[in-house]
């Protein structure tokens, strides 16, 4: 009996001693006190030092995009640090290119806040928030594209520009053993700021698309963060060329809805590429826009129409259809959303027709 007591006493005593040492160390050696972080030269925040920069910023509601959640395995959370904080860590170097090193780009999940810092992050990140949402509607747009409507719960409103995207958090499930984030454009209009609509195309074995198509149901909770991106309508008088394919519809639909709501009557043509008629969707919606916007036309083009269909619209590759329409690139600007291959081909056609590259805006997804 006494032997057991001695064992408990000894191990308890040793562990407590070590715990006390650790607590003392934590409060002396590892205590960096209050430090200030100056963001983009104007905003200054006071934070408790000693934690990774990514986490510190997150606690201040500043979200840097990160897919791995701070484990140094995605390389996304890059931040420019103007203060000298010492050499690169071996956990950073796999992700930071040499020319980025010259500019002091650091991986914010790996560096710790131990002193006053001056950092530079894209201005838009300051507006990025994390939202708790509920799926209130899911419907099939085509055989492989679903429209998902999310009701924002906390915070209740999102402030974004038509065309921007959010990141959707996929929890652990069969295809992933850690939460991952995937970017999706918002298809809804900024005026409808308590809901977010996404258009998600099914990709076999795609981590997020499989999750959305096969596991997500109405009533489920989903976490998103955003808004991100510089794909939005520029305020000019130029004629607009929209080009999209598949779920690339989403940001363009958002932009056109915004134009209809704000009565922006610029000349606009929307070329939408699909293979067959069953890949087309939201045609009624586009008809509505054609009524509201006097000089807007929706031009769907099928590359591979079924033989027995009575398709009367354009046929051929989207690049051919666009090329045929464009006479010259004068006073035009273009907004593209689709696969990298489609974007590349379209940018070529547009520049050949005289639209300068700085007036071609695109959102690319792999």
């Amino acid at each position: 009996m006494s032997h057991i007591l001695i064992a408990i006493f000894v191990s308890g005593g040793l562990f407590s001693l070590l715990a006390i040492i650790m607590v003392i160390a934590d409060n002396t050696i590892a205590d960096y006190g209050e430090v200030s972080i100056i963001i983009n030269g104007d905003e200054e925040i006071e934070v408790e030092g000693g934690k990774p920069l990514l986490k510190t910023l997150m606690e201040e509601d500043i979200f840097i995009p990160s897919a791995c959640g701070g484990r140094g395995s995605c390389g996304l959370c890059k931040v420019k640090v103007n203060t000298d904080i010492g050499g690169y860590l071996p956990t950073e170097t796999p992700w930071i290119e040499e020319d980025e090193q010259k500019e002091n780009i650091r991986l914010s999940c790996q560096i710790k806040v131990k002193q006053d810092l001056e950092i530079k992050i894209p201005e838009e990140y300051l507006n990025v928030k994390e939202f708790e949402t509920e799926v209130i509607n899911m419907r099939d747009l085509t055989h492989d594209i679903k429209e998902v409507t999310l009701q924002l719960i906390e915070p209740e409103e999102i402030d974004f520009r038509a065309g921007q995207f959010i990141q959707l958090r996929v929890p652990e499930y069969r295809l992933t053993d850690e939460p991952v984030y995937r970017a999706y454009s918002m298809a809804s209009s900024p005026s409808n700021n308590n809901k977010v609509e996404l258009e998600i195309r099914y990709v076999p074995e795609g981590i997020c698309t499989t999750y959305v198509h096969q596991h997500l149901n109405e009533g489920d909770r989903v976490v998103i963060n955003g808004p991100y991106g510089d794909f939005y309508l520029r305020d000019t008088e130029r004629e607009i060329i929209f080009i999209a394919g598949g779920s690339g519809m989403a940001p363009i639909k958002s932009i056109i809805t915004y134009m209809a709501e704000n009565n922006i009557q610029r000349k606009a043509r929307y070329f939408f590429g699909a293979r067959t008629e069953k890949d087309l969707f939201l045609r009624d919606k586009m008809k509505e826009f054609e009524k509201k916007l006097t000089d807007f036309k929706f031009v769907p083009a099928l590359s591979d129409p079924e033989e027995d269909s009575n398709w009367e619209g354009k046929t051929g590759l989207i690049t051919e259809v666009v090329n045929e329409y464009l006479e010259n690139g004068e006073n035009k600007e273009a907004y593209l959303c689709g696969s990298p291959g489609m974007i590349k081909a379209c940018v070529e056609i547009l520049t050949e027709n005289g639209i300068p590259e700085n007036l071609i805006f695109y959102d690319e997804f792999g």
Partner: protein
Amino acid sequence: MNFISAFAIFFAAIFTNNILLTNYLGMCSFLAVSRKVDTSVGLGLAVTFVMTFTSAINWIVYHFILVPLDLVYLRYIIFIVIIAAFVQLVEMIIERVSDILYASLGIFLPLITVNCSILGVSLFMVIRDYTFVNSIAYGLGSGIGWFLAIIAMAGIREKMDRSKIPNGLEGAGIALIIAGIMAMAFVGFSGILSLS
């Protein structure tokens, strides 16, 4: 005499009884961090440092607390907690004191808290009934042996980046085969000295 036996233990721990290549301990970080020579130098130094000091601390705790109180069966749990606390403490200190040291060495410390070769050294040391000096020699030697093995591995793997490896063997597969061949090479030393 004492000095000679300590030296023999030190030497044997590096070559003939290399903890990694003869006991296959500390494999996980060995496989994970041996892609580049730079990083494996950092990890190797960290392991050497921690092994030497934890074997000393654990020896003291074992012989002055556990043996007199007849509690040697608690050694597994006590050793591992001491190692964990020591590693944490060292990490905090390094992080505070030197950015350069932290970047090259400190970053690996959390990795070796759960490195089985560290616990292995402490356990072998009591099983083989080493004196205090011999234990330190054994810890230091094992650390250097581990360091040597991981650097050799990293050197081979850096070269291997440019060679063609069958699909099924890429990554850990080929690394294990190489570790096996390296272990056989080290067996060649075993006639020189042996630890018992």
